[in-house]
C-alpha cells in the first residue's frame, strides 16, 4: 500500500515557491513553526559556529552539558597553530546551580581555565538556562577580564532568543568589541579582511594564497584559522570581503560605520564566483597591475582546472540536484557550480535566506525549481521524490534523507573535511559529485532497481 502523499503544513506553504511562476514574495526570517522538525538549530548554534575557528581563544559554554558536548570538535575548521578551539569547555551546570545561580561557578571556571590554557581571549556562550536564571554574565566577564588581563567576552546566545541569525549577530557583536584594540602599523594600503570564511579543510589558506599572488595583503580572516591579535588590528584593512553573507554582513556593516571600511559580498565557491571575487577586489583598488595579476591567477587556475573537470562533466550532464544549505550565498554559488558540471538544480532551500535572497534564487534558477525556506525532513523528502533528483547537497541532518531514498549526497556543511572553495575546491567538488552520483550502488537500491526492472 502506498502511504498518502506528504502534505505541506498550513503554516509552511508561504515559505515555498516555484521558480518561473508569479507569486508573492516568500515568507522567511521567521521563527520556526512548532513541531515542524526544522533543520535549523538555535541562537547558540549561530554564535558557536561563527566564533568556533578562533583558535587561540577559550570558548566556554555556560549551561548544562548538552550544548557543549554536541559542539565538541564539530567543525572541519583548521588552525595552522593553536588547537584550543577543538576542546569543549562547559560550566556543566547542575540542579543546585540552577537554583542558586551559576555566576560563581562561571567565574571560577574562567579563572581556572584561563590560568591553565593561557588563551588570548575568552568567549562565554550563554545557553537557554542562563537567560532564565538571570546570571549576570557580563559582570562576571568584566571581573575575570580585570583579573586575568585578557578580553573576556559575553556572547548573548540563549537558544530561545530568536533564530540562528540572531546568534550570528551576537557573535559579530562579540568580535566587534575586539576590533580596534590592536596596532595597525605596517598594514599595506592594498589590504583586505576575509569575513565569513571558516577555513573548513584549509579553505582559508587556499583563498589567501590567491590574494597573495595578486599582491593583496590579508590582514585577518574572520574567523577561519582566526587569531585574536589579527582581529584586534583588522580595522587597519582597506576592504572587507564578506563570503558568508548571512553570518557576517552585520559585522561588515558595523566596520563600515565605525571605521569607514567598505565591504563587498563575494563567494569563493565555483569558478565564476571565485573569479568574480578576485576581479572585483582587484578592481576596487584601481591598480591596473593588480588587475593584470588577477587575470594571470584566474587564467592560470582555470586553464589547469577545465580539462580535469571536463571528464566529470561528461558523466554528470543532465543530472538533477537538490540543495539545502544554511545560507543563500552558498546556494547561489552551488546553483552556478552545478551548471558548470552540466547539472540542473530542481530544489534549493536555505535555513537563513532573506526576501532578496529568495527573489534572486527565483530569478536565477530554471523554471520549475522548488525554492524553500526553513524546511524539514518530510518536505525535503517529498520534493526529492517529486523531482526525482540524483544528488542532494546539504549537511549531516539531510544525509539520511538522501541515502534512504537511494540518492547521492554531497556534504557542503561545516563538518566536511574536503576543501570545496577556490579552484582546487571546484575540482574536489566535481570529484565528490561524481563519486556521489555515479557509484554502482545506485543500481541496486530498491527505489532505482524497481524502476530499472520496470523499464526493461
Amino acid at each position, binding site marked *: 500500500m502506498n502511504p498518502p502523499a506528504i502534505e505541506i503544513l498550513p503554516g509552511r506553504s508561504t515559505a515555498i515557491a516555484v521558480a518561473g511562476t508569479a507569486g508573492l514574495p516568500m515568507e522567511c526570517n521567521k521563527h520556526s513553526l512548532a*513541531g*515542524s522538525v526544522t533543520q535549523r538549530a538555535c541562537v547558540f548554534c549561530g554564535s558557536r559556529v561563527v566564533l568556533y575557528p578562533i583558535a587561540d581563544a577559550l570558548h566556554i559554554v555556560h549551561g548544562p552539558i548538552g550544548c557543549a558536548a554536541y559542539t565538541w570538535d564539530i567543525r572541519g575548521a583548521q588552525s595552522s597553530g593553536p588547537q584550543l578551539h577543538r576542546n569543549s569547555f562547559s560550566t556543566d551546570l547542575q540542579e543546585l546551580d540552577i537554583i542558586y545561580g551559576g555566576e560563581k561557578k562561571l567565574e571560577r571556571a574562567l579563572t581556572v581555565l584561563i590560568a591553565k590554557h593561557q588563551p588570548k581571549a575568552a568567549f562565554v556562550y550563554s545557553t537557554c538556562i542562563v537567560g532564565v536564571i538571570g546570571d549576570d554574565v557580563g559582570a562576571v566577564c568584566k571581573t575575570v577580564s580585570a583579573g586575568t588581563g585578557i578580553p573576556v567576552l559575553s556572547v548573548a546566545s540563549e537558544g530561545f532568543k530568536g533564530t540562528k541569525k540572531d546568534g550570528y549577530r551576537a557573535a559579530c557583536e562579540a568580535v566587534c568589541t575586539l576590533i580596534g584594540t590592536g596596532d595597525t602599523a605596517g598594514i599595506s594600503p592594498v589590504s583586505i579582511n576575509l569575513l565569513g570564511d571558516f577555513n573548513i579543510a584549509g579553505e582559508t589558506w587556499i583563498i589567501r594564497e590567491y590574494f597573495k599572488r595578486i599582491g593583496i595583503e590579508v590582514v585577518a580572516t574572520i574567523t577561519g584559522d582566526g587569531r585574536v591579535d589579527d582581529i584586534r588590528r583588522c580595522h587597519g584593512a582597506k576592504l572587507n570581503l564578506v563570503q558568508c553573507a548571512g553570518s557576517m554582513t552585520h559585522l561588515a556593516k558595523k566596520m563600515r560605520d565605525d571605521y569607514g571600511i567598505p565591504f563587498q559580498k563575494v563567494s569563493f565557491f565555483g569558478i565564476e564566483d571565485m573569479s568574480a571575487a578576485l576581479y572585483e577586489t582587484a578592481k576596487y583598488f584601481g591598480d591596473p597591475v593588480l588587475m593584470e595579476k588577477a587575470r594571470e591567477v584566474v587564467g592560470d587556475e582555470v586553464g589547469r582546472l577545465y580539462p580535469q573537470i571536463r571528464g566529470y562533466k561528461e558523466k554528470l550532464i543532465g543530472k538533477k540536484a537538490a540543495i539545502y544549505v544554511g545560507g543563500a550565498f552558498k546556494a547561489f554559488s552551488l546553483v552556478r557550480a552545478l551548471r558548470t558540471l552540466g547539472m540542473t538544480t530542481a530544489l534549493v532551500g536555505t535555513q537563513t535566506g532573506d526576501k532578496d535572497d529568495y527573489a534572486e534564487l527565483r530569478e536565477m534558477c530554471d523554471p520549475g525549481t522548488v525554492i524553500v525556506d526553513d524546511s524539514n525532513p518530510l518536505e525535503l523528502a517529498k520534493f526529492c521524490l517529486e523531482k526525482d533528483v540524483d544528488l542532494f547537497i546539504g549537511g549531516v541532518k539531510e544525509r539520511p534523507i538522501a541515502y534512504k531514498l537511494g540518492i547521492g549526497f554531497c556534504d557542503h556543511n561545516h563538518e566536511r573535511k574536503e576543501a570545496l572553495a577556490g579552484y582546487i575546491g571546484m575540482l574536489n567538488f566535481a570529484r565528490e559529485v561524481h563519486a556521489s552520483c555515479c557509484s554502482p550502488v545506485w543500481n541496486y537500491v530498491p*527505489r532505482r532497481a524497481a524502476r530499472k526492472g520496470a523499464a526493461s
Partner: protein
Amino acid sequence: MSGCGGCAKGSGAPVDPAEAAEDGEFPGPTTNACKLCTPLGACLAFKGVEGTVPFLHGSQGCATYIRRYLISHFREPMDIAASNFAEHSAIFGGREVLHTGLANVERQYQPALVGVATTCLSETIGENMPQLLLEYREKRAGAPGGSELVHVSTPSFRGTHADGFHAAVRALVETLALPAEAGGEKTGRRSRAAQPVALFPGFVSTADLRHLREIAAAFGTRLTLVPDYSDTMDGASWSDYERIPAGGTSIEEIREMGSARAAIECGRALTGQARTAGTHLAKLGVPLHRLGLPIGLRETDALCAALTAVTGCVLPPAMEAARGRLLDAMVDGHKYVFGQRAVVFGDEDMVIGLTSFLCEIGVQPVICATVARNRNFDAMLRAAVPELPADTLVRGRMDFADIEAAAGERKPEFMLGHSKGYAMARRLGVPLVRCGFPIHDRMGGHRLLHVGYAGALSLYDSLVNTLLARKQEGSSIGYSYL
C-alpha cells in the same frame, strides 16, 4: 572537574574525597565531557517504540543537535520534533507552542505515540507537563487519529544521557503497561507462562537488541524489548519515504507487559533504584530479575541463568556452542592479553560489563571511568568484579581531561570505549578499541555486538587483533606469524 584527575579512590570507601570536593561550593568546569544530556537518551529510547516521534519541549536547537549527534552514529533518519520555544514562550510558558507542535506532528507523521521529553529550559521555567498534556488531549478530543502521549521529565542539569534513556523506558512502562487482569480479554485468558518475557536491555546497540531476541528464541520464549530500535535505527534501504521508520515494540506489546511471564532488567546502575521500569512491572506482579548488561562470560551466564529460571529450559545447544567457542578463543589468545593494562570509559553499565570481561581474560583495568555522578559506582563495580585490583582507579564524574591526566600516569596499553576518546588515545599514543556509544569515526559503530557469548567473542577478537596489529607496527622485523 579538571585538576582532580589524579585522585585515586580506595576500594570500598563510600564517598570519594574528590567527589566530596565536587560538592564544594563551586566545582570546576568540565573539559571535553564524557557524557551527553538527558533528553538525548530519552529520544533514543522513544525510537524503540513502534510509530513513535520523539518531541522535545524546549528550544529547537536541542532537537537539532541531538538529531545530528544520533545520525552521525546510526547513519539513519532521526526526526525529533520540538516546540521551538521563542522568548515569548520562555516568559509566559510554552502551552501554545507545545499544543501547536503536537498538532503539527500528529498531522504530518500520524504517529501512534509521541514521546514528550522536557529540556533544561522547560524544566527551569516550571512547565506543568501533565496539565499541559491533559489540556491538549481535551482540546483534540473527538478528532480522529489522536496518538498516545508519554511524558518524561529530562532536565539536562540532572543526570546523563543514560539516565534520560532509563527515565523514558520507565515512563513508557508506567504510562502504558496494564495490570494482568486489566490487560484485556486476550491476555486474561492466557496464563503468564504463555506470555513473552519483558526485557529492558539498557543502552545497547542495534546488533545487541537483535542478538538478545535470538538468545530468547533459543530459550524458546518470545521477548518484549523496551526499547527496541534495532529496525528503526538500523533499517533497510527504502522504496518510498517512511515518515516513521518501520519497527519497534508496539504500544499493544507494552500494554501487555503487566502480564509478562517475567521481567529482566539489565544494568547494575539501575539495581539500586527503587523506581524503574522493572520495579513497576514487579508491582504488577511480574517476577523481576535484575542483572548487569550481559557483557562477557559471567554476565552472560547470569542472563542465561535468569532465562533458565524463567523458562525452565536449560542452556540451549546453540548457546552452549557459542559459550564453548568463546572459551576456546579465550584460551587460544590468553597470552596476547594477559597483564595488558587498559583504560575503560563510558556509561556506568557499559563500563561495568566491559571491566568484568577484561578481568575474565586477564587484562588489568587500570582506570574504570564513568561520567555519572553515582556515588556507589565503585561499590557497584567491585560487587560485579570482585577480583578487580584494589589500586585500579574507579571513579565517576570524570571528563576526558581527567581521564587523560590519570591515564598518563598509569601507562595503559590500550583503551576501551566510545569514539570520543580518540583524541585522548591519539595524544597518549595508545590504540582505542571502539565500543558503546557514540562511534562517530568508524563505519557500523551502531552494529557492533557487545552482548552475549557472541558479543564477547567479537569484542575479544577486535581487542586481541588491535594488540597484535600494534605489535607488528612497533616491530622492526614484522613477523607474519603471531
